[in-house]
């Protein structure tokens, strides 16, 4: 059991990062702090996906000797030599979506500040109740 916990240390670390982001989203009252928490949460999930592609002794997924022989000499690719590139490609999209989400959230926060002149959630709710 102890060995299982130690050997999966990266998963525990990602769960910890995810919980830091979730705490900031739920507990912090400042809107920019909430957006920072959302950013941390999303990148923890991306980190989890990338970590599934890691192999022991594998290197960067770029083919070795790919430019020799002009296609006539087809050589077998040793899969265990390269990290799995499929999660990389999927998470490349997720990073761009992360920044786009953050931009929209910041635009909404700026509009809220223009209307209520504060970024604190409790003060905004008070102002909304006053009418």
């Amino acid at each position, binding site marked *: 059991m102890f060995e299982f916990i130690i050997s999966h240390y990266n998963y525990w670390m990602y769960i910890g990062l995810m919980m830091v982001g979730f705490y900031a989203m739920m507990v*912090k009252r*400042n809107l920019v702090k909430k*957006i920072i928490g959302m950013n941390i949460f999303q*990148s923890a999930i991306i*980190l989890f996906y*990338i970590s599934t*592609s890691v192999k022991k002794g594998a290197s960067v997924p770029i083919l070795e000797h790919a430019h020799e022989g002009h296609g006539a000499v087809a050589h077998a690719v040793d899969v265990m030599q390269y990290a799995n590139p499929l999660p990389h490609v999927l998470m*490349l999209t997720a990073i761009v979506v*992360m920044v786009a989400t953050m931009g929209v959230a910041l635009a909404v926060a700026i509009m809220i500040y223009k209307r209520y002149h504060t970024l604190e959630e409790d003060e905004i709710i008070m102002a909304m109740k006053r009418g």
Partner: protein
Amino acid sequence: MILSFDLILLLFVFICAIAAITIRDLLSAVVVLGAYSFFMCLLWTEMAAVDVAFTEASVSAGIGTVLMIGAVSKTKRRSND
């Protein structure tokens, strides 16, 4: 993948995440978030995901930090929590 390097980078990422949500000055928090993104980028290079690493360095640490600084300069810099 080197175990000790991986552990040190994960520790730095965790420290930066904790610091980014506890600092009350929002501009400092945003800059610490940029440092968090760069440590994440190092972690991915170390995990042999170079394409994700340079996308993170340019998009998340670059444009993301610029957007955040712009938003903070348009609104208030102090935070209550």
